[in-house]
């Protein structure tokens, strides 16, 4: 196979430009052979090299006293006190999920779990941020059903609770759905594992599943010599095996409790190639691999195939010499493959042997550091002016349409298919502002939320970037958590288009500002570009996953009204900010004007105030305001508690603005009337806008007498029914 002639066509099929190919020849000092070309092509792909995004990612804030490991490892690590660390990351599996929703989403979950337990953490929570095309699009139901089933199929089986996420619909995702999965794990701060290999001569060990021809680089499919049974194109879709993943988690954690491991890395995208190159590169060493030793699922596998296979549920480790046998016993106990496939060298090269011959020999440095980096040209997104957004006659209908529509309706249909309670520490289940998961055996808990509002990012990338970060911060705050750090998954269209690149740069600028202002650094992340079909890209979607900690998990707030006759307190000032709002889009069918402005200082001041109220036990009912504004938040709280509410809003704003404006940095609190009065005074003293707007009770949602007046039963029904009704028309397959 290595005698295949490298032609310009073959280079192009590997997704490399001719300039990039010249770069390879220069770095190697010769022409690469076929295997080497394959390896360069995946290492220099957008996915592995971040060639379009690296330059801008460098500008993001990644440090804080509690950050143990920022971007650059498999996942970010933060200190949560008492010698414990939270380890987390978010990743996309967009394209595979569009091709094959069940397996695409399932393997996405598998991949992100591995990123986290590779570092020594036991995964304790999964999240999923999903975007689908418009509900009416013929593929939407099928994709949604498959993705949800796949996420559940994998996460439920490995026994990690899926505790939250977000789900949006927008036509821009018709041909490019987004499936972003996040995992959070826990480890001891002195038991964290990294990927830097060390120690010339030390064994390189392969564990997990066998290698097959799964998911080998789409480009290579075109090469006719490639498959023996050429009647059938090899599927590029990988099938996940969550049972093996569960065994792999347990086996790795068992081995990690010993001192045998020097370095460990999961085999993710570009499998054996990227894992070995990254380990060697971080450690400044060379690797020699004997490919005959790689456990293989299929016959006659070639070096090219083994190096590029994306078979799932595999890991690579460097062990201390002499520990192989002990490690092998552990993996045998868990009925997993274990093979010493090579050793560390001092050559600085990745050397591949097969059938006794050297079939590849590449300088590790050139694979990583010589990878191209592009400062792609961009044009900033033009600023939008503020616009007047019209009122509607029938407010009741507008409220019902929003709360009972695709974007605000209950996601119960989704999260009831996820085991969100396994592990026995989920103390705030899906449906609230943030999921809360206890740190096992302690009083502490982690609060987790994923958010982004792509509408805003499209209207104004900088504001949208700020807002995405701020919303996770606010959601964590609203349950009583102290936000500590974020991960992200940056989903955009084609970076070679200047306007798309402008969105990317703008969003990152806003994100960076928000992280700095909120002391809320980025510790890990993932970039997914080229989410585009026939020249039309997705809305810019920088999904943010935030993690916070709660010292005392007994002091936690939820959104549900707890009692009749409680006062409702609105924290934060409401402005006329209906541009790019959900109201504007869903009710008026328009998208215009500037999105709400994010004032980060206000955000912080209001949030810190609210969190203190929860931490000191004054408040157990709280909800932040976001999509749909005040009225949507009130509806959520009333529905969750099964208690009606009656409020009065006055002031200078037109009523529709007061109800639907999406002004940021606002919260609703319900509390006993005396407590509410105290809170009002405290807020006033602190200079925080505050207003007692009404009280809980009754069985209707009412505003200003009967300006809005909807029976709770009708509201709850609209909210609950939309998704099951919508999905009932899905043609269920057979599982």
């Amino acid at each position: 196979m290595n005698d295949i002639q490298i032609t310009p066509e073959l280079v192009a099929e590997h997704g490399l430009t001719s300039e990039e190919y010249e770069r390879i020849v220069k770095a190697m000092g010769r022409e690469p052979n076929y295997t080497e070309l394959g390896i360069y092509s995946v290492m220099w792909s957008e996915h592995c090299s971040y060639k379009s995004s690296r330059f801008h990612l460098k500008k993001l804030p990644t440090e804080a006293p509690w950050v143990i490991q920022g971007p650059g490892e498999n996942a970010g690590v933060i200190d949560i006190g008492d010698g414990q660390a939270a380890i987390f990351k978010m990743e996309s599996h967009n394209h595979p999920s569009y091709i094959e929703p069940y397996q695409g989403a399932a393997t996405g979950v598998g991949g992100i779990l591995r990123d986290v337990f590779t570092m020594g953490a036991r995964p304790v929570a999964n999240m999923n941020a999903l975007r689908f095309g418009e509900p009416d699009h013929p593929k939407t139901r099928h994709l949604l059903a498959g993705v949800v089933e796949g996420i559940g199929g994998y996460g439920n089986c490995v026994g990690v609770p899926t505790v939250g996420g977000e789900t949006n619909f927008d036509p821009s995702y018709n041909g490019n759905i987004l499936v972003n999965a996040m995992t959070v794990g826990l480890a001891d701060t002195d038991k964290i594992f990294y990927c830097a290999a060390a120690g010339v001569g030390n064994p390189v060990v392969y564990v997990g599943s066998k290698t097959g021809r799964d998911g080998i680089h789409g480009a290579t499919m075109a090469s006719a010599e490639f498959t023996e049974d050429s009647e059938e194109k090899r599927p590029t879709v990988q099938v996940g095996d969550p049972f093996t993943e569960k065994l792999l988690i347990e086996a790795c954690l068992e081995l990690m409790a010993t001192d045998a491991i020097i370095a460990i890395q999961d085999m993710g995208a570009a499998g054996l190639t990227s894992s070995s190159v990254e380990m060697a590169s971080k450690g400044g060493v060379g690797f020699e691999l004997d490919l005959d030793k790689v456990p293989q699922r299929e016959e006659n596998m070639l070096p090219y195939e083994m190096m590029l296979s994306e078979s799932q549920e595999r890991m690579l480790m460097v062990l201390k010499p002499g520990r192989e046998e002990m490690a092998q016993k552990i993996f045998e106990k868990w009925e997993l493959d274990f093979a010493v496939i090579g050793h560390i060298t001092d050559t600085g090269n990745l050397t591949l042997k097969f059938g006794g011959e050297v079939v590849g020999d590449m300088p590790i440095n050139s694979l990583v550091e010589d990878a191209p980096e592009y400062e792609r040209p961009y044009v900033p997104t033009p600023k939008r002016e503020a616009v007047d957004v019209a009122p509607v006659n029938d407010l009741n209908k507008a409220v019902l349409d929003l709360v009972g529509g695709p974007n605000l309706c209950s996601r119960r249909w989704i999260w009831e298919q996820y085991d969100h309670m396994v592990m026995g520490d989920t103390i705030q289940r899906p449906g609230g502002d943030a999921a809360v998961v206890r740190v096992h055996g302690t009083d502490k808990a982690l609060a987790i939320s994923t958010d982004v509002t792509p509408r805003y990012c499209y209207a104004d990338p900088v504001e949208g970037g700020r807002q995405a970060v701020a919303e996770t911060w606010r959601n964590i705050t609203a349950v009583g958590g102290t936000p500590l750090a974020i991960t992200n998954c940056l989903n955009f269209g084609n970076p070679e288009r200047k306007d798309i690149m402008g969105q990317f740069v703008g969003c990152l600028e806003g994100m960076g500002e928000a992280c700095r202002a909120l002391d809320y650094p980025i510790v890990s992340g993932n970039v997914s570009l080229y989410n585009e079909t026939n020249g039309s890209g997705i809305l810019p979607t920088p999904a943010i996953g935030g993690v916070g900690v709660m010292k005392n998990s007994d002091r936690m707030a939820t959104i549900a009204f707890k009692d009749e006759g409680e006062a409702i307190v609105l924290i934060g000032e409401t402005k006329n900010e209906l541009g790019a709002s959900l109201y504007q889009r869903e009710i008026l069918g328009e998208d215009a004007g500037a999105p709400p402005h994010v004032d980060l200082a206000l955000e912080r001041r209001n949030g810190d105030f609210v969190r203190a109220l929860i931490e000191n036990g004054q408040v157990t009912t709280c909800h932040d305001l976001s999509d749909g504004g005040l009225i949507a938040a009130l509806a959520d709280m009333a529905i969750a508690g099964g208690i009606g509410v009656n409020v009065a809003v006055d002031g200078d704003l037109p009523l529709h603005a007061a109800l639907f404006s999406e002004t940021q940095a606002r919260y609703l609190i319900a509390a006993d009337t005396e407590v509410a009065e105290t809170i009002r005074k405290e807020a006033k003293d602190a200079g925080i806008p505050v207003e007692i707007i009404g009280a809980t009770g009754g069985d209707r949602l009412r505003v200003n007498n009967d300006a809005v007046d909807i029976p709770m039963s009708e509201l709850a029904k609209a909210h609950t029914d939309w998704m099951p009704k919508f999905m009932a028309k899905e043609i269920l397959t057979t599982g």
Partner: protein
Amino acid sequence: MKSAVIVFPGSNCDRDMAVALEKITGTKPLMVWHQDYDFETVDFIALPGGFSYGDYLRCGAMSARSHVMKEVIKRANDGVPTLGICNGFQILTETGLLPGALMRNANLHFVCKDVAMTVENTDTLFTKDYAGGEEIIIPVAHHDGNYFADDDTLDRLEGEGQVAFKYTSDINGAQRQIAGITNARGNILGMMPHPERMIEPALGGSDGRKLFTSLMNTLN
């Protein structure tokens, strides 16, 4: 009360079960790996939930044929109280210790939520502390909880008081809304809902506790 929790490859509620047993009985259970089949004498055996062997082929099929189950079957037949939750229930039916089978949920979806069920028989060592007909809330989390047995078997189960719990509404298509059954002797209980997930207010309620206290009060 000395308990054993059997751990199969792919079990994932083993820790939850151990935590519940320790919290309620005060004694840490023995965790028995499926290959350690000559484990010490215990008063009680729990088969936890999860996806043993990935639920591949049929849920519980492979675990039911494992070495450790030969020992469990022997002890259960000797009268040792044995509880199978969710995947544990599936394993018990696959071994034949309990009649019937658990099929794919009627709507084909995995379901994880709190469900209401009634305690049908309080005259078992697992249910003594509940009141007759008591309605309790316990979560389910399963893909294959659709209990099936032929009509004769169902009549017999109902007639002999072997139905321990019934859902108050249709959750998964189970015949006669059966959520849990015992063997004729009454020392083996299999149920789909997870009482170990409902043992403290922070988790959403405590209705699962009485199952464990019933056992403990009987055994001590």
